């Protein structure tokens, strides 16, 4: 205690100087977290090749299931457009009286699960056929309209379509009912399988990432053995010893996920040309849908979580065994 002010200071902090105020503790704690994060980063940069390797492995493991899942989302978006056009065409028996046809329209509307009913009269169908088919002039020679009245019934749900077809077929004035939905249902279940597959692949590769990070952290723990012993000797808690390794795992996961997002962007650029060409052939406005901002954050979050988990597993296994002797 050289000066008065110093000794007063010391009194405030407790006679022996090992009592610290709560505010100081909180500042110290925040500072410690920040500096731990910094040193974790510096340690990663000190071995750039090793770190990059780990990050790329994590990125690939995250990219595979994410790409599959994105592909399926895109397919679903595409099939959603087709689903909307999954209309039931109902052809009315020829010679039905107009009043009966109108009666039928209201009956169709009353069926449960029906979204809209559009009446296409025989005349308008013929007009349309004339303009679209190019046989316009030839059709003028027909004595009578060969086309029947028809209805386009739009089901609310694709799953209702089969039941509706059955019910409509039982109506007296119906000549024929057409729907091309079997392949749609097949596509639907195929997409479901794909979704399941991407989930399973994601889970398997998630475990893979946990193991990769775990192994990297295990090596880091071994190389810092001396430091861990000294920190424990001077009163470092388990949490204190654990923290830098957990941060390292978190950083690996987050960087891996960011690299994965970059890979997905490159992949979609690469596919964009081919997709646009295909969409052009079908007169479709379809465009590849990427990860999006929400998806990006979800991916980074997932990467962070698996990185943290991997570090946790390694730390739990190896840190307790390192004790001062």
């Amino acid at each position: 205690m050289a000066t008065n002010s110093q000794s007063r200071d010391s009194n405030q902090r407790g006679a022996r100087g090992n009592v610290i105020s709560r505010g100081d503790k909180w500042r110290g704690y925040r500072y410690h977290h920040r500096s731990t994060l910094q040193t974790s980063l510096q340690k990663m940069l000190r071995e750039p090749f090793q770190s990059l390797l780990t990050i790329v492995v994590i990125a690939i493991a995250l990219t595979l299931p994410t790409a599959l899942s994105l592909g399926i989302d895109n397919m679903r978006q595409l099939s959603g457009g087709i689903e909307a056009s999954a209309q039931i065409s109902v052809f009315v028996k020829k010679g039905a009286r107009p009043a009966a046809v109108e009666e039928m329209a209201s009956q169709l509307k009353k069926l449960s699960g029906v979204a809209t009913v559009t009446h296409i009269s025989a005349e308008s169908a013929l007009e349309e056929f004339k303009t679209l088919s190019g046989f316009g002039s030839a059709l003028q020679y027909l004595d009578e309209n060969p086309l029947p009245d028809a209805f386009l019934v739009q089901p609310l749900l694709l799953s209702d379509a089969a039941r509706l077809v059955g019910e409509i077929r039982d109506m007296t004035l119906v000549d024929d009912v057409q729907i091309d939905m079997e392949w749609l249902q097949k596509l639907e279940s195929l997409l479901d399988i794909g979704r399941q597959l991407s989930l399973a692949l994601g889970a398997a590769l998630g475990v893979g990432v946990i193991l990769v990070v775990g192994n990297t952290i295990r090596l880091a723990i071994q190389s810092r053995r001396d430091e861990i012993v000294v920190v424990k000797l001077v009163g470092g808690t388990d949490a204190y010893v654990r923290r830098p390794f957990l941060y390292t795992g978190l950083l690996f996961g987050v960087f891996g996920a960011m690299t994965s997002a970059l890979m997905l962007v490159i992949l979609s650029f690469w596919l964009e040309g081919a997709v646009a060409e295909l969409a052009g052939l079908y007169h479709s406005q379809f465009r590849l849908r990427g990860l999006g901002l929400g998806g990006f954050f979800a991916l980074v979050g997932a990467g962070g979580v698996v990185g943290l988990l991997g570090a946790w597993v390694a730390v739990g296994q190896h840190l307790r065994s390192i004790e001062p002797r």
Partner: protein
Amino acid sequence: MIRFDNLSKRYEGGFEALRNVSFEMDAGEMAFLTGHSGAGKSTLLKLLMLIERPTSGNLLINGKNLNRLPRAKVPFYRRQVGVVFQNHQLLFDRSVFENVALPLQVAGYSPADIGRRVRAALDSVGLLDREQENPIALSGGEQQRVGIARAVVHKPKILLADEPTGNLDPQLSAEIMALFKRFQDVGVTVLIASHDINLINRMNTRIMRLNQGELEQDGVSYGGY
């Protein structure tokens, strides 16, 4: 401050390192722990650092029984104790300053506080101008003094030292011992394990002599040797 109550330590495999050891040390007292290698000096210090736990008997610090201290509380106990090692246990991947700062960082001191206290500790061992150097660049005596600075930077109530002069020449050893004496003067309880009999005899302090795990002699005079 420190009380050993009929304490024994038997290691796995049956080796009995300490047998029915009892002694007491008051706050601000300084004592040497001596004896041949294998007599139990290191074990006794390890029990005080809670690196080892006693097989039987009680160890009380400030009236509190360490046997009842759960594992999770051990770090907080260690923050009240400063330890100097024979091999100094410095980390060569960081500067002298950062080595000394470690006990404060661990206890959650703020950066400004750390700077002030580390410099005070380095000043007390006469190494203030070396704070930015790597400890590997220092001599053996200087490294040991860095180790001492680290042991006292958080102002512990108890200072333990295991052969702190083991690798040093007589003059450096005397300097180190004088340093310990200064900490005793400000109220720290100091316990030093050493077999440097010549040095110890000159210090005129309490000496406890262990022989094959038993406390053979306890007193200021070192009769017969």
